[in-house]
């Protein structure tokens, strides 16, 4: 019996070790930086090397290469991951051997490149592009808070609202769906519940939903004029009181909505806020059923968050005139339309979309255009400088939401506790403030 008992104990122990071993997490090894692609020697008629962290999927990259063939100058498109791309450009500055001539990436990366002294000033290029009518709000972002142009807006996406047309009769009287206020949205949601007995407003509050962006780019800027500095302000208390009110008329299933296109299509909800790419399927499937419109405005303006990609010229590029010509080509309305068809990134320039763009995408493009050019627009940017801590930054907002709205905790106490978490993140990363918070010298601070 003794031996048998030992065996049983041993096998049970091994079972535990095995099961636990399977579950234990391990730190992910950092991806090895990709080595720079082969360097082409400087010969006459060299193509402009256009490196980009966007349009990386093969099909998107091929579509762009095809669109670049009609350019007056030869070019070579090289998509690469953010990290290696930035490293390569900075390294080329250090060695003085400039290969990448034009860089295309997201707004947040340009401040890094500018600080490294890798960006040429291109106010002259911006002047040449006046006839393109690039959206002024976006063009301003390309100055990186200075008076000089550092990058030209290239393509954009954003988060906005979509509604089933069945919801429109319940709009509060005098409300224009294209210029809603947050108060009107609340009344609208209340009206729909009164009329249908169901909560017809939906928000993407599942773990994979983008609700943190709603707080960072929409609710906070619209109510407080800031994102980080105003996190625990009196205005923020009002914003959360509003959020609690709004939640009373929001479908409680929202905490399991990741992409709003699904509940919109099933009509579980009629009105929703989400990223364009996560609404696309709904409006593409039933374009006649939906309207797409800007997010509401609050006391401080119509806060919205563009996801903006730009193109810039690298300092010291041998063929600057060719690089300029490439940017001129990329901002042509027909090239912008090609990019839209291939990727779901929308044009930054005015101009009619070609006829082969689907009706749903047209609806979205219209919504983006209205939101970007609204008179009370208050542009907020995606977090800058937080690096890997971006996830915990989002967590500060979702935890605040969970505690105040879902668990009904006291607002000021929660904001105070979460502000401490936020402060620790900025202490750790040293990230300065970004728009709409005023610029800071050191790490951004919660006031």
């Amino acid at each position, binding site marked *: 019996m*003794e031996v048998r008992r030992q065996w049983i104990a041993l096998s*049970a122990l091994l079972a*535990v*070790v*095995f*099961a636990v*071993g399977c579950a234990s997490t391990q730190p992910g090894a950092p991806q090895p930086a990709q080595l720079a692609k082969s360097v082409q020697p400087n010969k006459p008629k060299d193509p402009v090397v256009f490196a980009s962290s966007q349009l990386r999927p093969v099909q998107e990259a091929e579509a762009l290469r095809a669109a670049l063939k009609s350019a007056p100058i030869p070019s070579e498109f090289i998509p690469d991951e953010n990290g290696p791309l930035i490293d390569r450009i900075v390294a080329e500055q250090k060695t003085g051997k400039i290969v990448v001539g034009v860089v295309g990436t997201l707004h947040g990366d340009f401040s890094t490149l500018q600080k490294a002294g890798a960006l040429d000033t291109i106010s002259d290029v911006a002047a040449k592009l006046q006839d393109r009518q690039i959206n002024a709000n976006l063009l301003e972002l390309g100055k990186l808070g200075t008076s000089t142009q550092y990058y030209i807006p290239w393509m954009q996406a954003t988060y906005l609202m979509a509604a089933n047309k069945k919801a429109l009769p319940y709009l509060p009287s005098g409300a224009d769906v294209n210029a809603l206020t947050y108060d009107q949205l609340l009344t609208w949601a209340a009206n729909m519940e009164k009329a249908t007995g169901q909560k017809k407003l939906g928000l993407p509050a599942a773990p994979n939903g983008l609700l943190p962006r709603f707080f960072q780019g929409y609710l906070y800027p619209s109510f407080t004029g800031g994102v980080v500095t105003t996190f625990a302000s009196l205005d923020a208390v009002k914003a959360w009181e509003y959020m609690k009110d709004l939640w009373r008329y929001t479908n409680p*299933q929202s*905490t399991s909505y990741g992409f709003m296109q699904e509940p919109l299509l*099933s009509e579980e909800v009629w009105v929703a806020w989400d990223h364009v790419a996560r609404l696309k399927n709904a409006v593409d499937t039933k374009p006649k059923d939906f309207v797409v419109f800007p997010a509401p405005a609050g006391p401080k303006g119509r806060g919205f968050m563009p996801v903006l990609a730009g193109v810039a010229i690298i300092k010291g590029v041998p063929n600057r005139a060719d690089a300029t010509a490439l940017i001129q080509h990329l901002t042509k309305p027909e090239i912008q339309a090609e990019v839209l068809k291939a990727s779901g990134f929308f044009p930054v320039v005015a101009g009619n979309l070609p006829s082969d763009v689907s009706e749903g995408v047209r609806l979205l493009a219209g919504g983006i255009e209205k939101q970007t050019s609204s008179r009370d627009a208050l542009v907020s940017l995606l977090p800058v400088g937080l690096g890997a801590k971006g996830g915990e930054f989002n967590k500060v907002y979702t935890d605040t939401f969970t505690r105040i709205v879902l668990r009904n905790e006291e607002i000021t106490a929660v904001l105070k506790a979460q502000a401490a978490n936020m402060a620790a993140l900025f202490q750790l990363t040293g990230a300065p403030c970004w728009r709409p918070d005023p610029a800071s010298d050191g790490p951004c601070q919660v006031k």
Partner: protein
Amino acid sequence: MTTHTPQARWAYLLLLPSILFLGVFFLWPMVQSVLIAITDESGGLTLAHVLKMARDVNFVPALMYTSLLITVVVPIQTVLALTKALLLHAQRKGRDVFLWIWAIPLGISDLAAGVAFLSIFTQRGYLNTILMQLGVVDAPITWLGYQNPWTLFFAVAVGEIWRATAIVMVILVAGLQVINREWLDAAEVFGASPVQKLRRIIIPLLMPSLRTALVLRTVAALQVFALTQVLTGRNLPVLAGEAYYWYGMFTNVRVAGSYSLLITLLSLAFAAFILRFARGEHEKV
């Protein structure tokens, strides 16, 4: 203790490869994940990550729901599996057919099981459809909303019971097969009732299998993740899910490590408890 004969030494030598295997592939990663949890970037010891875990909004709910799942699900599964195993054991005809059917959940991943139960419990799912057609309710019930934690828990518990009873049953069926029939025949000769046979002979002799099944199930229940993830998102936080979110979504490997350390410690504690107390009469020396 007995003295080691040369034969016993050979036995240990033969065990060496598997010990090495376990050491390299299980013990070492375990030690590493412990180190991740209790050191900082510079390598110094710290409790900051463990405290960060303990103070997180979802820590107490996660600990509570995980423990509750174990205390509700594991006993129900054990009773169900024992009943099924005894039924199978008593059956002469068609035994294999039932065994195959009851073992089907074994071959289904917990993620797939989660999706299947989601289609039952979601607002426009099968359950609400049936209830409405029967006229039991007028409007669909939100089984999986955050505001009804008990129906959420119920859905997860049902899913978990469906999914993992099979493994317990299979272990018990195997255990029943090695029980010597002569003991049962002898009991019958002395006029023992079926209940007496069950209590006095079958369960005590089944104890080793039962214990293995309990340890496996408890450890697996501590790791429950995919099912709750699909059914509830984060509305019903569980420990393994929190470890995943801290690792993947908040990219803080150290707090994730703290969670996996906690899961490891709880697993060891439960296993030790089961091994210590769930012991058959005949095994007590």
